[in-house]
């Protein structure tokens, strides 16, 4: 056993070093693709922070990443790996669509929007609750069930959009536009033309609530005990099963933020695959952010910038698709998650000497 690292090194230096490592390997991939890494980095930086429009888009994507990261992180705190954020977000989109399609003719926007947000949270929570219940009461491993639930949600969405919810006379599998009376969720006066909307503020709020819930309440204390030492939790009389079920439902409800941001914030109708893989990026966000709300928000900003910069990159350098950003994401998951121990031991040795 090596000595533990000082707190600042564990929380800031190590993630930073892992990020540098991931970027270095990404540069090699860019070289292998026959392109210049510095030009790519430049295009990425300009594309994500170069103008008010770019910053707005970055914040818009960062909102998705923040919700996804919080969803993964809070489950991680109970020792659960929720790979199902993607499916939970998709189902949450269905919740929004059902509320809006059913009630948009009869309710004013001020009542409809909160109701739609609640509907999405309820659907997301339900899609997290079931794997949580299966884990707690039937012992089915949450990793496998959430993977399966992603595919079940995807099939269900295709079926509903192709056969049931599709706008009659339309070819594309999408619902009609919601008549909410508002163009979209307010852009709260953000400069430039970007889809950044009030969901961003909801994300900041959600991060604060998660912090209070997990670090400042008895319930959260119990949750962390379940995650770090289930044996001790049982001995202390903490109901492990209930914690698992509730935290998975909360995780699913957080995933719903992606649907709110995309569907109510931009599309105004339910479309296929609106999540765009944000649920999986949430794993990288949570790992990079060390499962802490502040870390998750910072990591979300980074991944939001990557997502936005990636589309600009594909524009600037046609031979480098935006999938290059997926490579960076994969490498970050690898270095901060699976290979996390790679740098820790050498770093501890260096710091002990210095």
């Amino acid at each position, binding site marked *: 056993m090596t000595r533990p690292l000082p707190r600042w090194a564990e929380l800031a230096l190590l993630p930073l070093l892992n990020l540098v490592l991931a970027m270095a390997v990404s540069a090699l*991939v860019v070289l*292998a*693709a*026959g*392109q210049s890494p510095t030009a790519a980095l430049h295009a990425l930086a300009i594309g994500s922070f170069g103008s008010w429009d770019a910053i707005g888009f970055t914040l818009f994507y960062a909102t998705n990443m923040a919700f996804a990261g919080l969803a993964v992180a809070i489950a991680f705190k109970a020792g659960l*790996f929720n*790979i199902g954020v993607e499916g939970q977000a998709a189902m949450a989109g269905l919740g929004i669509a059902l509320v809006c399609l059913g009630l948009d003719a009869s309710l004013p926007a001020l009542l409809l929007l909160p109701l739609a947000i609640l509907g999405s949270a309820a659907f997301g929570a339900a899609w997290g609750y079931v794997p949580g219940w*299966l884990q707690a009461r*039937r*012992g*089915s*491993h949450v*990793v*496998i*069930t959430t*993977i*399966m*639930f992603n*595919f*079940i949600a995807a*099939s*269900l969405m*295709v*079926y509903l959009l*192709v*056969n049931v919810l599709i706008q009659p006379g339309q070819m594309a599998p999408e619902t009609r536009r919601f008549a909410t009376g508002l163009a979209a969720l307010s852009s709260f006066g953000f400069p430039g033309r970007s889809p950044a909307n009030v969901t961003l503020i909801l994300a900041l709020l959600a991060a604060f609530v998660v912090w209070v819930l997990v670090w400042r309440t008895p319930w959260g204390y119990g949750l962390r005990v379940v995650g770090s030492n289930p044996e001790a939790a049982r001995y202390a009389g903490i109901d492990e099963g209930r914690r698992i079920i509730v935290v998975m439902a909360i995780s699913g409800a957080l995933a719903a933020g992606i649907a709110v941001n995309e569907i109510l914030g931009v599309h105004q109708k339910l479309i296929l695959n609106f999540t765009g893989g944000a649920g*999986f990026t949430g*794993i*990288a966000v949570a*790992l990079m952010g060390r499962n802490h709300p502040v870390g998750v928000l910072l990591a979300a900003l980074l991944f939001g910038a990557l997502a936005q910069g990636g589309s600009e990159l594909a524009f600037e350098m046609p*031979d*480098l*698709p935006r*999938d*290059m*950003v*997926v*490579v*960076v*994401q*994969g*490498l970050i*998951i*690898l270095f901060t*998650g*699976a*290979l*996390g*121990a*790679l740098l820790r031991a050498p770093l501890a040795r260096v710091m002990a000497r210095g």
Partner: protein
Amino acid sequence: MEAALDLIVPILAATLRVATPLILAALAGLFAERSGVVDVGLEGKMLAGAFAAAATAAVTGDVWLGLGAAILASSALALLHAFACVTLRGSQVVSGMAINVLAAGLTATLALAWFRQGGQTPALPPDGRFQPIALPGAQWIAEVPLLGRLVVGVLGGHTAPVYLALLLVPLAAFVLWRTRFGLRLRACGEAPGAVDAAGVSVAKLRYAGVMIAGLLCGTAGATISTAQGAAFSTDMTAGRGFIALAALILANWKPWPVLWTCLLFGLLDAVAIRLQGVPVPGLGVPFPVQAVQALPYILTVILLAGFVGRAVAPRAVGIPYVKER
């Protein structure tokens, strides 16, 4: 009778074709998970294999070189997985997901950068693909009334990977249950402490399990791009790695049941394709093909929940082995 055969033979032949990459990938998962290492990265390794096979076959025009490249690419990712899980004792699920994401990004990026065809590799020439192999003595077998046509129609005229996958099932059963290596590998997944106490290296055996998985996933990927298809396209494995994982769980981590569950999923797929757009008799609505496609996942959840039967994973799967002092 002839009419029934006309319907059944193509469906069963398609079942075998569709099931082949599933069998290979599920056997891959079998070796990794029996050794105690969770492998949710089957999908990524297959995707890397599919790209490497199609890219190499497109450049060299040789399908076997393509297969070799697929195995190399997939094995490189498997080595990474083993290093992360066994040597560094990192999270096995995180490592598997990282491999999936990494492979999705790498294959799409390199396919566009190297071939400039919107993320596809060039269409393969005949020598760059696995060609159908005629069943030896097919013309005589076909003479047998009814049965002959069934045998030739279903089993004959497939590509080499199909027959390879069918041969690998008994081989895997033999290796895992009838050899010393297999016994030790399975023991690593159940009670690694006992293996260690017997003076056998748990790490080496787990590396072996994960690397065999790499080899098989590469073959599965090559099958998808150079036997079923004739080029690589972005995300062409389309979740088959996870279906294989579901098949492995439904099969209770045993080789012969793996064959049956993969064939079942292949049959579901083959039937679903034919039911596309067909109206349900009496209801007039189109057949819910998606329900058939979701069935493997639903069955897996039901089985895992223990409502019907019980899936028993290797006891030590997913837990990094730490030598006691």
